[in-house]
Structures are given as structure tokens and as C-alpha cells.
């Protein structure tokens, strides 16, 4: 296989891992953010219970994404993590708190502090992730460093732009939307009303933000405006955008109607996937726009081939046992606090 094709395949695989991470851990983290605004201990317990058995597997997609990116595109891994040191740390500290709060809450007599750690940890992690995305879109300065090696050449606070704040808010709301729609699947009837309202509120807010971002982006970045208006990808981009908007309209309709339990979650997933596909198309062939392309960053051919066997071929297997895990723990939480207790 040619190096160029291999690099593109790996870009697709890395993107797939990222999408899987964002939609799977996205709803866990969204539920975490929602728990901050939930004052009834029983509901909070149910929220944590609904993801107790699966959040760890979901977070693993992030570990996989990190490893694959490091192996396939070391230049991007180094430059992006170096440039976004501050938001990455925010995300990591948040994820640590989220993880330990699950363990310690299970053992603790006083649940409240750990439930709060879960909520605030989730919020910090989501905010960090939003700022990372915003930081990448706000352009990272790449150039020769003091040692002459190509790498990150900017400062630690470069990521803080109006655009990255908008993106961060959109990501927080998006996670809340997908988290709330997952909760519809899980919670008993008396809680559903409230959860439907959460889906509605978060998705409308997110939609407005995304419109704002889409409208301002072309002015902030010539690179993106060119993509939207001319260039070979303008057509597919508009198609994806229209698709996302359509899925979104369906989601609103279904949520207002309040009759379906599965459909809101599926539609939220669709919105996410289409939005992601749109972003991928807009960035192609860059990984770090507008300075590092897929080809520039890719590892050498033997590495990419070896990884294709060691990791690429395992993706279906991983999907399979994740699917099995979800099957074992499918169904609603009818007996709160009972269903997913450790034993």
C-alpha cells in the first residue's frame, strides 16, 4: 500500500476513535454536568448508577485515540498537546475527579461530596475538551523551536480566543444534550418529564451557539471561509450541514412530543456524527489547520502498516465486546440504587 493512502486510512481511523469517544463518553460527561443541577439525592444516585458499569469502557476510547494519534501522527500529538497544555490539564484533572468519585462514592457513607466531585469533575473535563477543540480551530503556531526542531512555537495562553470560548460552550451543551437524551432511556417515568425539558433546553442553546460559530468562523479564519464558499468540499459540507440541521429539527420535534424513549438519543447521536463529519471535511487535508497536513505528520510506512494490524484489525473486536457490555446492561433503572450495585 502507498504511504499516502495509509496515512489517509489512519486519519480516518483516528477520527473514528475520536467520534466514538465523543459520543460515548460524551453522554457520561453530559450526565455528570447535569448532576450539578440536580438537587434530589435519589435522582443523582440514579444518574451515576446509569453509567456506573460503562463509563470506564467509554473513557478507554480516549486512551486508544491518544495512543493511535501518538503512533500514527507523532508530530500532531506533540504539537497539539504541547500547545494546549492548560486545557489538556483541565480535562485530565476533571477526568481524575470523575473517576475517583465513582470508586469513593461506592465505599463512602457520605455520598454528597463524591457526587459533587463527579459533577464538577465532569464539567472541568468537558470544558477542557471544548477548549482543546477551540484551541485547534483557533490555529496553533507551528515553526522551528529554539533547538531548530519543528514544533509548537507559540505561547501557553494562545488558545484563549473568543472562538475557543464559544466552541467550549457549544461542546458543554452538546454533551448535556446527548447525556440527557441517554437518561430518557434509563430513568423511570416520573423523572422523564424533567429530562425531556433538559434535552430541549440544551439542544436549543447549542443550536444557537453553533449557528453563531458557523457565521463568525469564516470571518475569523480565511482558511475555513474558503472551504465553505469555494473549494472542492463546499458541496459535501453544505449537504452535511443541512443533514445535521434536519436531524436537529427532528430531535426537537420528538422531544417536544415526549412519547419516544429511544429516538431522542439516536437523533442526538446523528447530530453529533454529522457535525463531526462536517468538521472533518472542513479540515481535510489538515490535522492542525493550516500548518500540518495528514501526510506531513504521518509516521513511516512500516509503523502505519504494523499499527493497522495491531490496532486497526482490533477495532471490530473492541466494538463487539463493547456492544456485548451494553447489551448486558441495557434496560431502564426501575429499582434505583439496586440495579447496578456492586456485588
Amino acid at each position: 500500500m502507498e504511504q499516502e493512502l495509509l496515512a489517509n486510512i489512519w486519519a480516518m481511523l483516528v477520527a473514528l476513535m475520536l467520534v466514538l469517544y465523543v459520543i460515548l463518553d460524551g453522554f457520561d460527561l453530559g450526565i455528570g454536568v447535569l448532576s450539578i443541577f440536580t438537587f434530589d439525592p435519589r435522582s443523582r444516585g440514579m444518574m451515576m448508577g446509569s453509567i456506573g458499569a460503562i463509563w470506564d469502557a467509554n473513557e478507554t476510547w480516549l486512551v486508544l485515540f491518544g495512543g493511535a494519534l501518538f503512533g500514527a501522527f507523532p508530530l500532531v500529538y506533540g504539537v497539539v498537546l504541547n500547545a494546549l497544555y492548560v486545557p489538556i490539564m483541565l480535562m485530565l484533572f476533571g477526568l481524575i475527579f470523575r473517576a475517583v468519585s465513582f470508586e469513593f462514592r461506592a465505599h463512602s457513607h457520605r455520598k454528597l461530596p463524591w457526587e459533587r466531585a463527579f459533577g464538577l469533575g465532569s464539567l472541568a473535563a468537558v470544558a477542557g475538551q471544548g477548549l482543546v477543540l477551540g484551541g485547534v480551530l483557533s490555529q496553533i503556531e507551528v515553526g522551528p523551536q529554539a533547538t531548530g526542531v519543528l514544533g509548537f512555537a507559540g505561547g501557553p495562553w494562545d488558545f484563549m480566543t473568543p472562538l475557543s470560548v464559544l466552541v467550549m460552550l457549544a461542546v458543554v451543551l452538546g454533551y448535556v444534550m446527548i447525556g440527557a437524551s441517554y437518561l430518557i432511556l434509563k430513568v423511570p417515568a416520573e423523572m422523564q418529564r424533567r429530562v425531556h425539558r433538559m434535552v430541549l433546553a440544551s439542544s436549543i442553546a447549542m443550536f444557537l451557539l453553533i449557528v453563531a460559530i458557523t457565521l463568525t468562523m469564516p470571518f475569523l479564519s480565511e482558511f475555513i471561509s474558503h472551504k465553505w464558499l469555494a473549494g472542492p468540499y463546499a458541496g459535501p459540507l453544505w449537504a452535511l450541514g443541512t443533514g445535521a440541521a434536519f436531524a436537529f429539527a427532528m430531535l426537537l420535534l420528538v422531544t417536544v412530543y415526549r412519547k419516544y424513549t429511544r429516538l431522542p438519543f439516536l437523533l442526538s447521536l446523528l447530530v453529533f456524527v454529522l457535525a463531526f463529519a462536517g468538521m472533518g471535511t472542513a479540515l481535510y487535508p489538515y490535522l492542525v489547520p493550516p500548518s500540518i497536513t495528514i501526510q506531513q505528520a504521518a509516521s513511516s510506512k512500516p509503523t502505519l502498516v504494523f499499527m493497522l494490524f495491531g490496532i486497526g484489525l482490533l477495532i471490530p473486536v473492541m466494538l463487539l465486546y463493547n456492544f456485548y457490555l451494553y447489551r448486558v446492561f441495557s434496560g431502564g433503572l426501575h429499582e434505583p440504587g439496586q440495579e447496578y450495585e456492586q456485588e
Partner: protein
Amino acid sequence: MDWPDPLMLSRVQFALTTMFHIFWPLLSIGLSLYIVVMEGLWLLGRGEVFYRQAHFWTKPFLLSFGLGVASGLPLEFQFGTNWANFCLVSGGFFGNILGFEAAMSFMLEAAFLGIMIFGRRRVSRGMHFFATVMVAFGASLSAFWIMVASAWMQTPAGVQFEGGRAMIIDYFAAVFNPSWFYSFSHMWMACFETTLLLIGGISAWCILRKRQTEFFLLSFKMALAISLIVAPLQILLGDMSGRGVATYQPAKLAAMESHWQTNPPGQGASMAIAAWPDPENSRNAWEVRLPNLLSLITTRTLTGTVVGLTEFEPKDRPPVAVTFWSFRLMIALGTLMLTIVIWGAFQWRRGRLSPKLAHTNKWLLRMWIVMIPTGFIATDLGWVVREVGRQPWVIYNIMRTSDGVSNLESLPPTISLLVYAAIYLLLPVMFIYFTRRLVIKGPDLTSDIPQPPVRIKGDPV
């Protein structure tokens, strides 16, 4: 190097996070295998008590697993945030191995852990056992890949550095590089030894206080019996590591032994049992030496040549005092571990570990309790020898640690170091607090064993 220099901050942060992270994999690898054995014995019909064992030790396992996940994620990302230039150079091999670890082991562990912990009423017993085995297998496989990556930094092989980037030329040689075997096996054995000391120590505490003596006598004897193989084996593997280091990283071995001058042909190298190195003058300020011993241990002959530190430029020498003393202390602890294991086995043979008499072995049991933390400490000391001894290189003889660091200002890594220090120091405290409570509460020996779901015909489960 000025403080707060981003390089120094990054090094301290890496050392701190790895040294406090490693506690949890030590336990989750060791405990997961112990649980597999217990659950296996139960399924083979050796009695309910083995189910109770599996059930009780699953709780500290789960705690350590959770803390391992929480404290491990930052390690992977730390390579990018703090060591970006190392990533650029090594990514083609090192990054890909981290990816392998995630794809092969983390996914396995994470997906089956949910079933192992929450699934007893949801899947059959066979499936539950399978999930438990997969969790244990995933945990050990993860250790394998991490040790391969780490060993490659010690003895890089199978790659060519073109344009400052590692290009793989021989994958097999890179993965199975010269130091992978002794690195992995020594670490893997450390997981067992540390875990057995914890199980044995906790059991000793309960036996001494006559709390559910029969239950804890079983786990004490299990820990003792397995340690009887593990403790001496670990010393043999340590010796093997030492000889590997002598072959592939002579500067590190010389630092471990504070050995400055290469012994002349025909004369044996003596070994410093204790010494205070004086790097300025390339000698020891004071020392206690035993003749010929270093040659004997390193080369298996009385007069074999052992390369001294003066053969290397001062800028290519690792810090001596830290390496030397960490090494000495680790060996002392390993020997002490073997001693209490043999002592325990001796008492067992004399029939002193019967349910009636067990609590009378006061000093033996106290010794096991005191030794609980030593597995963790010895492991960290071993890592200090390994990593400090590799300095000043990050990739041995290829890239210097100082060339690997990211482009950073002082403030962000200062803050992150402080936050990490606070969190990572808190985790062991919480672990001790909750484990202590679990032990005081004791194992649940009475409640019903959860029943797997009954399949109704035609019901698609």
C-alpha cells in the same frame, strides 16, 4: 538548571506521577490473578469459602483498578504535553506501542470489568469467570506493552533515526529488544510480591486480633505459599536484570555500584557495600568494600572486567548517589521479604499455623503487618534505579532528556505539578482509609451467593 525551569518541573512531574501511579497497577495486576485463582477453585467445587475469598478481595481490587485508571490517563498525555520533542522522535515506535496497549489490554479490561463487578446476576457463572480472566489477562498484557515501551528507551533496537524521527526497520527486534524480558518479568513479579505482601499483611492483622481467623488464615497461607515461589524467583530475576544492565548499559551499572575505576586485567573488581560517592573528584568519599565480589556477581568470574564510571565523560554519567542507594535499599527490602516468607513457612511446617495456634505467632504476624508497604517502596526504588540510572539519556545513547522536553513556560507546569502532587498524594490516603474500613467490616460470610439469570425458553437473552 534553574528552578523553576520547565525541564526540571517536567522531570519532577513525571517522576511524581509515575511513582504514585504504579501502586495501583501493582495491586490490580496481582489481585486480579488472585481473584481468578479463588473463583476458579470455587467453580471447581472446592467450597464456598473460595467464593467468599474472591468476593472479599474484589473490593480492594476495584479500588486499586479505579485509582489506576484515574491516575494513569495523565501519564499517556504527559508525553505530549511535557515531552513533545521526545514524541516527535519516538512516536513511530513508542506511540504505536502505547496504542497497542490501549487497543489490546485497556479495552479488554474496561469492557469485562463492568461484567465482573456488576454482572453476577446478569450473566452465567461461566461467563462471569471468563470476564474475570479477561480482566486479569488484560491487566498483565498492559504491563507487557508498557514494559516493552520502557525497555526500548533503555535498549533501543530495530529502528533507524532518519531526519530526527524513529523509522522502524525491524519490528520484532524493536519489541523484543535486548532488555524487554528481564524488564517485564521483574516488574510482573513485583506485582505479585507486592500484592501477596498486602494480602498476607492484612490477613496477619486479622489473625492477630482473632477476626474471622479461618477466613484470613486461608488467605494468609495462600499468600505464604505463593510467595515461597515468588520471593526467591524475584531475586533471581533481579540478578538477571543486573547482568543485562552490565551488558547493555555499563554506565548505569557503574552508578548502581558507585564503581569509578575499571579494574585492571587479572584483578577482581571489589564491591562497595556502602559508600558516599563524590562525583566532583570521580571517587567515593568513603566506602566499605568487599574484594572481587563485583566481578563475581557481574561476570561470574573472580577477575572479570567491570567498566567504571571514569570511562564515560562526566556529562554522560548518571547521578550516582541516588542510583546507588536506591539499589541498595531495594535489595535490602527484597531480602527481608524472603526472610519473612521463609520464617512463615517454617512456622507452618511446625504446625503453628493451625486455627487455634495461629494468633500466637505474634512476632511473625507483626512482621508481616509492618512489611505491607515494602512491596510498593521496593518497586519505586527499582524504578528510580532504572530511570535515574538511564540519565542523562531519555532514549539511551540517542536522545538526551533535556532535548525531549516541550516548549513550555514555567507557570503552567508549576501549577500542574502542584495539583498533581495534591491529588496523587491524596489517593493512597483514601485507599488506606477505605481498605481499612473494608477489613474492619470483614468479609461477608453469610449472604446468599448471587444467582445467574435463569433462561426461559424462547426468551432471547
